[in-house]
């Protein structure tokens, strides 16, 4: 067997051009299959562990998934504002433990700005009840303090005390900035692996101060601007926010609160239980996942068929090679095994190259995926399931190789030493 394997690999090396093509096609298909599987796991992990301990997320009327996306994942846009009046009403309710108002709508170099209360750093949990921790500094103390997430600090190279100018709107570039009211970085959060890392947090009053002279939705002309210092003296109580998160004192009352908010006649609201909306999101994604996996499986099959056709077409040219082998004492079964091993070796090489391609692609695309879709990539090793899949691909190749092997076996019996071409 060892001799045969050596022979097979040398024979393949002799035809390395076409063999490389077969290897590459299998590698691409394996990379696609493993890549889809790992992406699915990354997405699941990123989304599932994003928020914990919040009983209700409430915003202007929209679909539950969309509400969860823009409040928790900071993807997408809100459909409308929520008045502070309802936020305060809910906060005063005896069944409610805490309320976190959230205000979105500004950005800094593509990272979202979130206006909130200091209680956010205490009550916002992620994963299995993990609290937010500060790598440096602390929550906002001054009006113009900002707390940034780990990725914002890393990617933009910010340190404590650096000035940060916020821009109006959610694009990566904005032509209407709040340059007259720069903020100062007062805290940098430790990495969480959630969208918190990509957020710049400021106080609600700070957001109001930035917009205190933006009555027409645009910055006022130079003469009419309010300076940062003057803004401190203005009335900075917010009248509207984008959404709010509720923590209930008694869990059993969450349905009643949800129903009461949804029925509230004062303004159109949607209240979602985060776990429910996340599960709905899963079920939406599940269909897409299934389709992607099916396509990836088909691509693997296509890769193997390509390899098979390459071997079959090469059989005609290799009849002389088979004859020479027979003449030096190879039995017909050796010829059979030789061809099966060739198929196996091609698949093995393709699988190994495919794993390399997959990791390369993930390392290259990882930062972009995290930025754009909030999916944090974890470059872990291959799971047992991955290894089983790879073994399955090699096994399938071995089985597929039996077909050209059998053809060669029969021809070896028929041809003898004289070949009629």
């Amino acid at each position, binding site marked *: 067997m060892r001799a045969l394997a050596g022979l097979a690999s040398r024979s393949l090396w002799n035809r390395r051009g076409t063999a490389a093509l077969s290897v590459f096609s299998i590698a691409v298909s394996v990379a696609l299959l493993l890549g889809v599987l790992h992406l699915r796991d990354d997405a699941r992990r990123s989304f599932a562990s994003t928020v914990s301990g919040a009983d209700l997320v409430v915003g202007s009327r929209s679909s539950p998934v969309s509400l969860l996306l823009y409040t928790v994942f900071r993807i997408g846009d809100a459909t409308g504002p929520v008045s502070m009046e309802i936020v305060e009403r809910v906060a005063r309710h005896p069944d409610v433990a805490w309320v976190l108002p959230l205000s979105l709508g500004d950005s800094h170099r593509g990272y979202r700005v979130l206006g909130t209360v200091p209680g956010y750093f205490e009550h916002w949990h992620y*994963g*299995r009840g993990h609290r937010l921790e500060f790598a440096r500094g602390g929550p906002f103390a001054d009006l113009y303090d900002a707390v940034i997430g780990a990725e914002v600090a890393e990617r933009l190279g910010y340190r404590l005390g650096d000035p940060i100018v916020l821009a109006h709107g959610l694009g990566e570039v904005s032509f209407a900035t709040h340059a007259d009211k720069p903020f100062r970085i007062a805290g940098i959060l430790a990495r969480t692996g959630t969208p918190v890392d990509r957020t710049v947090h400021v106080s609600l009053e700070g957001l109001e101060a930035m917009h205190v002279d933006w009555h027409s939705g645009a910055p006022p002309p130079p003469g009419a601007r309010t300076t940062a210092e003057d803004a401190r003296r203005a009335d900075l109580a917010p009248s509207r926010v984008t959404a709010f998160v509720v923590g209930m004192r008694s869990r059993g009352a969450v349905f009643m*609160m949800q129903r009461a908010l949804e029925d509230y006649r004062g303004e159109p609201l949607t209240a979602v239980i985060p*776990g429910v909306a996340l599960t709905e999101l899963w079920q939406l994604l599940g269909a897409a996942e299934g389709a992607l996996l099916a396509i990836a499986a088909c691509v693997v099959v296509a890769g193997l068929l390509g390899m098979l056709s390459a071997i079959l077409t090469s059989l005609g040219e290799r009849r002389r090679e088979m004859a020479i082998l027979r003449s030096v004492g190879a039995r017909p079964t050796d010829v059979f095994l030789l061809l099966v091993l060739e198929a196996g070796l091609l698949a093995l090489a393709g699988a190994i190259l495919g794993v390399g391609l997959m990791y390369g692609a993930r390392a290259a695309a990882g930062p972009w995926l995290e930025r754009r879709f909030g999916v944090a990539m974890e470059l872990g090793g291959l799971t047992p399931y991955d290894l089983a899949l790879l073994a399955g691909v090699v096994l399938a190749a071995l089985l597929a190789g039996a077909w050209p092997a059998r053809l060669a076996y029969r021809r070896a019996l028929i041809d003898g030493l004289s070949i009629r071409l």
Partner: protein
Amino acid sequence: MHRPRTALCCPALALATLLATGAHAAPTPPPVGTPAPHPVAGAEAAKAGTISWEDLVPDAARAAYRAGPPPAVHDYLSGESGLAAQQPQDFSVNATLDGHSIRLPGFIVPLELDAEGRVTEFFLVPYYGACIHVPPPAPNQMLFVSYPKGLTLASMYAAYWVSGRISTHTRQSKLGSAAYALAATGVEEYRY
């Protein structure tokens, strides 16, 4: 990370389910209009293991029990103490069930998910739709279940058998709020 085959592929459990459903077949149906007999009283049902949603309502309130959705809760947001008197929902618990091992079928409202997307904490409710646009169930018609092992939810419309140890708490608040909690040991898909 992949949906495990549910336990009902195991023939022993399929047989048990068949026997259980077979045991409920009545010999002759009573005439229309006969009031339904009381279900097995709380403690006895708990010893039997499988209970029904009616068992969660204590004897005193059972006579007034109405199946179906409760009326709208428009005034809940005002939080005034007078609300409890207006509220037809039942806040009392059946204390005889406390500490028993029970098995109850219901629908799952997920609350907490773990990193793999498995549900580790959820409400068990008697009908689907106790989620977003439909009236909530009465407080003593829902169980807060903790299941650290985590359940991969096949679909929000799927019913599950949940077994575990039930505990009852009555929290005193202005509105009165009861709670059943369950430490789940097993969750299986419900098949007819």
